[in-house]
Every structure is written in structure tokens, then in C-alpha cells.
């Protein structure tokens, strides 16, 4: 394995997104511009005994065309449908890119099939569907299905770094292309909603029975979401050789591990701050160059306090929003979806809104893009992800 002396520029040439805000990139863009609320009552499992009863969910009908109808398609996990649609859109928009590797983030994979399997067992039901459920629950299987559906047979790296998984996947893909180990990588994340994780956040009292209000002084917690997003990252040379058009440039990636606690960040903000600082060094820009921060912004008291300190200390009065306010927290896919939103913000020159926002928290200097999107001149944008286990990841994306 040999790197190169002069780093490559890493260009985004393809983009695909499926989220509660839309079944494709265009629909997501329109929802971001209009400040759409994609959160609604949970329909796929019982929430009568949980405090939180809402989530950002993708309607099943949006996923119907992911695979050709038939017996095999019926068995596949809806995570495979999300991933397949987002991957198809990314590949089509990249117009002929030839990815050599896929790097994917997720936290739950096809977990809901594992839940069905266990419920069947406890209920003493027939094992008729066991093989189907077991065969499709692992995090890698939906990705295998999505690759096969899209005619790709490439190595895959599945990263599960909790809520920073999607950003880690894009960051690793970025590093591989930057250092010349790969010319073209498809990277992103997928995350279908499942009961176990939903109840998990509810049990920690991190989920709210109210609306999700990131960075609001009266914030009460997160709601979960789901979705998939993939970016095609290519070296400048590869883009030039095939005459492709770049949508944006990924310029920086930084990570840190906050060892304070498994589920709580160090209140000093050192975890996200270190990741942001390392990303700025990687991108060779000063914090003042950042025009917009797409924050992790889960709306939990702890997360926003920690991240708020870090952003405030480092970037001062920068424009900030958490698009989780519109679609919930898609965990392992969140970083990928939010990176895709950053590309859209750069292309369309707007600031995505932070909806449900009422009252600013006076502890921070930054400007929350409250409730409605705004036009803005954007050159560099930064996206944060913060996860259980103290995983922090930051990406910097630049206009081309």
C-alpha cells in the first residue's frame, strides 16, 4: 500500500438521499428550503408505553420501487430499500463513476428483523420465516442487497461508530481518495428505525415527548429518524479524465474520541472541539472561513450544551442549524444525510433552517437559523457528528 506525496483534491460527483424529508435529493432540497417538518407519530411498532411517540419516518410507498417486485424483494429489509434507492441516485447523478470501494455507516442495520425473530421465538411461533429474518438482519446484508441491485461488486467497509458512523464513513472515503489509495469511493450511511433503539433512547430519557428543538433554551430531547445517503467521492484526476462535473469538494475531516463516559460527552466540549480543530487543519482553513455549521444538534440537554460550547468557542458568531429538527436523528445515517444537505446548501447557496426554535440559549455566540431557510453566500461549511462511546467526527465541504 503506497500513498502519494501530494494530496488529491476530493470532489463530490454523485449524491443520493432518501429521508423523511423526501425520496430523492430534489425532494429533500425542497423540504429544506421550505422548513418541512418530517416528524410524525410512530407507526411501525407499539409506542403506548414510551414517553416519546414520534419519529421521522420514510413512508413505505417511497421505497416500493427499490427492487423489482417478487418473492426475493419481499424478504429484503427496508434498510436495503433505502440504501438501494440512495445508492442508485448517487450512481446515476455521478454519470458513469466507477467506485472501487464502499464505506458505509450504520448503527442498527436490519435490527427490526432480529426483533421479529426474537418475538417469534418467545411466542413459540413456527420457524417458517426464521431463515429470512436472520439472513437479513445483519448490518452488512442490506448493503450487499443494495450493491447487487445496482450492479456493483466492490469491497465494503461497514463502520459502526454510533451516531458519527455516517461522517466517519465519508471521512474515511475522503482520506482514501485524498491520499491516493483509491480514485473513487462511494460512501455514506443508512439507518432504518427500529423498536430496540427507539426504546433505548426513551429509557435513557434522551427522547422527548415534545417537538425536537435543537439549541433552544427549553429543549427537551431528541426524536429519532431514519434514512440513507451516499456520496460519490472522486479524485480530481478521475473527474477530469471522464469529464464529470463536481458538485462540491470535501476538504477536511477530523475525529476525536471523548473518553469521559459511554453515553455522556465531556461538558467542556473538548470532544467535538478537537474533531472540529482537526478538520480545520485537514482542510487548511481557519475557523473564520466557515460560513455555516450543520450541527449534530440532537436537542438533548447534554449534547447541545457540549457542542454549543465547542462551536461557540471555535467559530464565534457563525450560522448554525440542526436539520434533525426537521427529520429526527437518523443515527448511523445522520452524518451522511447531513453531509448531503451541506452539499445542497453550497450548491443552492442557502442556510437550512432549525425548525421548532423559540428561545435562544444565551450561553452561545452563534446564530441559529431559526425556523425558515435563508439565502446566503456559502464557501465553506462544516458538519458535526457526535456519538455514544465518545466518537466525534467533523467534515468540511467547500463550494466548487
Amino acid at each position: 500500500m503506497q500513498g502519494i506525496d501530494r494530496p488529491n483534491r476530493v470532489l463530490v460527483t454523485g449524491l443520493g438521499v432518501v429521508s423523511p424529508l423526501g425520496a430523492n435529493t430534489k425532494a429533500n432540497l425542497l423540504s429544506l428550503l421550505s422548513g418541512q417538518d418530517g416528524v410524525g407519530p410512530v407507526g411501525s411498532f407499539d409506542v403506548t408505553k414510551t414517553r416519546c411517540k414520534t419519529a421521522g419516518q420514510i413512508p413505505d410507498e417511497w421505497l416500493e420501487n427499490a427492487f423489482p417486485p417478487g418473492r426475493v424483494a419481499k424478504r429484503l429489509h427496508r434498510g436495503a430499500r433505502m440504501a438501494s434507492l440512495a445508492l442508485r441516485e448517487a450512481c446515476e447523478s455521478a454519470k458513469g463513476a466507477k467506485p472501487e470501494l464502499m464505506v458505509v455507516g450504520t448503527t442498527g442495520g436490519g435490527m427490526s428483523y432480529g426483533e421479529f425473530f426474537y418475538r417469534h421465538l418467545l411466542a413459540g411461533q413456527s420457524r417458517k420465516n426464521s431463515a429470512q429474518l436472520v439472513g437479513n438482519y445483519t448490518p452488512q446484508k442490506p448493503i450487499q442487497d443494495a450493491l447487487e441491485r445496482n450492479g456493483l461488486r466492490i469491497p465494503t467497509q461497514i463502520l459502526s461508530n454510533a451516531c458519527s458512523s455516517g461522517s466517519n464513513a465519508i471521512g474515511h472515503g475522503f482520506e482514501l481518495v485524498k491520499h491516493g489509495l483509491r480514485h473513487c469511493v462511494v460512501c455514506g450511511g443508512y439507518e432504518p428505525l427500529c423498536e430496540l433503539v427507539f426504546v433505548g433512547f426513551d429509557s435513557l430519557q434522551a427522547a422527548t415527548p415534545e417537538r425536537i428543538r435543537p439549541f433552544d433554551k427549553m429543549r427537551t430531547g431528541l426524536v429519532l429518524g431514519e434514512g440513507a445517503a451516499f456520496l460519490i467521492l472522486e479524485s480530481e484526476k478521475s473527474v477530469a479524465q471522464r469529464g464529470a462535473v463536481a458538485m462540491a469538494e470535501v476538504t477536511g475531516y477530523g475525529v476525536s474520541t471523548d473518553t469521559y463516559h459511554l453515553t455522556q460527552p465531556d461538558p467542556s466540549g473538548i470532544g467535538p472541539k478537537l474533531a472540529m480543530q482537526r478538520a480545520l487543519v485537514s482542510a487548511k482553513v481557519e475557523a473564520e472561513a466557515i460560513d455555516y455549521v450543520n450541527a449534530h444538534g440532537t436537542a438533548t440537554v447534554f449534547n447541545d450544551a457540549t457542542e454549543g460550547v465547542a462551536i461557540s468557542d471555535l467559530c464565534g458568531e457563525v450560522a448554525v442549524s440542526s436539520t434533525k429538527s426537521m427529520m429526527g436523528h437518523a443515527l448511523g445515517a445522520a452524518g451522511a444525510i447531513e453531509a448531503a444537505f451541506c452539499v445542497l446548501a453550497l450548491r443552492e447557496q442557502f442556510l437550512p433552517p432549525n425548525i421548532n426554535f423559540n428561545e435562544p440559549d444565551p450561553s452561545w455566540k452563534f446564530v441559529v437559523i431559526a425556523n425558515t431557510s435563508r439565502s446566503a453566500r456559502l464557501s465553506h461549511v462544516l458538519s458535526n457528528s457526535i456519538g455514544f462511546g465518545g466518537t466525534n467526527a467533523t467534515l468540511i465541504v467547500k463550494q466548487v
Partner: protein
Amino acid sequence: MTFSIQGIGAVTPLGSNGAETWSALCRGEQATRTPFAKPLAGRHYFSCPVPAKFIAAAARQPRLRRSGTISLLGAAAGFDALADAGWSPDHGSSDRTAVVFAVCSSGINYTRRFYHEIVTQGAHSASPLLFPETVYNAAASHVAALLGVNGQSYTLVGDSSVGLGAIHFATELLTMQPQLDCCLVVGTEEADWLLADAFASWRMATTQDQFEVYGRAGGTIFGEGAAAILLGRSGTLAVANSSAGLPFHSYRNSESAAREMFGHLPAEGIPEIIVSSANGTFADEVERKVFSEFYPAVPVYAPKSSLGEALGASALLQVAVAGWALRHQKLPGTLGAGPKLQSVNRQTRSCSASQALVTAVGFNHQVNALNLRLAESPY
């Protein structure tokens, strides 16, 4: 750019550390097969558990007092690898060391317990103490914290081949980031009845207390444990080739994927020993065909019939075994070897080898392989 294994560690059903495990394998010991407690639906399976005393020291760490077995195993193996390398963590190296974990089902005991509470007692009764330990990266997070790593910590998820992918991932980090001195790569997995029953639905787990490799593919027995390697920039045991692996979309394609991975891997000649992933499932036949074609005379050792199938840990255990074999110039005998592969090594014997091939055919459609090369004699 070539990287080297500087330390090897393990905790397995046969030993509380790498040295004990290696000795037991060479003596031809087989891990005790114990029936899982509390089977559901009257279905009984055996496993090869790690004795609790083997991870007692790890469990005394304050950070790990509530953590699941998978984290204790990972920590025990990780620290064994560091000790083997003569490495002691210091705060000056907090961003110069990366942690990469390989897991398959991860904290399945806590996950099952947590979901059981949801189903039987209602979501409002589910324990907030269990949930955090169900996340895939819990073990990596704990080990990073224990080592004082504030930089890179990654968890890769996959099937029983994921350990080889994790080593490749670590080589990528070391290639791209000159500030990194080393990378601790850990594969860890815990056994659970649920896992065995799930695999049985695909006829990949047996209800018997024995299984055959390279014979009748009647299913495997699950083990548990962890293996760790400290990968650095110098040393006598080089990772000569590694890969992110290859997928196969159906069983029909598995042989061609394995041929592509195993057959064309060695850059500097034919391997002198092979440490295989044979586990009594379809994977054995895939490996057998490719070995017979490319390496008909190379002795093959399959450790899973001694240790059980430890999924996320198993490929790293294979790498550990290959490393020990090259260090000690000895190859253990494969227990329970069936008649189908002529080149399987059946008795522990001395060997003169400087190159080893480690192969993995995963249950979830991934194949991978890597080469280890002894740069010079350690003696």
C-alpha cells in the same frame, strides 16, 4: 508501505492469554463444549465459553464494571497484545495510537436481555443501564478510554471475515497518517444461545457437541473470545498483503470470489502454511476447492474445531495463530478434520515457514485473506 505485527494477544476458551492459548492448541486440546443455559423452544446447542476467571482482571477496571462480556474480552486481549509488544500506554501517545475493533453480533447478551425486557415487561421497564452496552462500538470505546486514546477509534462490523478487513483498515490509517505510531486491532465476540439458534435456521449451527471440518458440513459450534494485534511500522512479522475483502452475492459466486482473494494474494511466492476459517459449514467446501487448486501441498490448519466459531473475533484469532506459528516454527494439528482436504495438517509438528496465508469465508457473503511474512528469524 508494509506494516508489522508488534504484539499478539488473545483470550479464548483455552487460555487467558495468547501464550496459554497457543500452548493448548499445540497440545491438541479442544475447548470444553457446554450446553447453553435457558434454551427456548426446547432447542439445545453447545458452545465453547471463556471461563469467567480469564476475564476477571478486566472486570476489575472501574470503567468496565457494568460492561458486557464482549468488552471484557476485548480489553483482556488488547492488553495482552500490548504486553506482548512490551508497550505501555502513556498520555503522550494519546493521538498517536488508533483503536480498530472488529465485531459481528457484538453485545448480544445485553441486546437480548434489553429486548426481552421490552417484550415481556413493556418498553417503560427496559433498563437504561443495558442499552448503552448494546451499541456496536461500546467495546472499542471502553478500550480507547482505558488506553487514553483521544484520536481515532473505529468499529467495523461484518461476518466472520471482518477481522481481516479490520487489519486492512488499520493499514489504511497507518498509510494515510504518518503521525500514527501504531494501531491496536481487536476482534471480539461473545456467545449466546440466540446466535446459535439463528445460525441453525440456516443449517450453519449443529445441535451436536462435535463438528467436523472439511467433512460433512453439519454446522458449527459457537465459541467466544477475543484476539488482538498491535500493528506498527516496524517488526519481524510483516502483513505482506491485506484487503478490504470481496463480496459474493450468492453461494454460486463464493468460489470465484475465494479464488480471486486466495489465489492471487501472495506477492512473493507460495505460502508455506495456511490458517483457514473452516468451521463445519459451506465455507469449508469453498476453501477446499481453492486450496486444492492453488496450494495442494501447503499444510492447512483450521483452529475453529478447537476454539469454536467466534465470528467477529475468529479471523483475528486466525491471524494470531498464524503469527504464533511463524514465530515458533510450529503448526498445530487440526482436530476433527474430515476426509475431504488432503493437505489438512492433522498432527502438531515443526515447520520451516516464513510465509502464512490466512483465509476467511464469511457466512454473510464476504471473503478475505491476508499474508503474513517473517522478515527474519526471531531467534
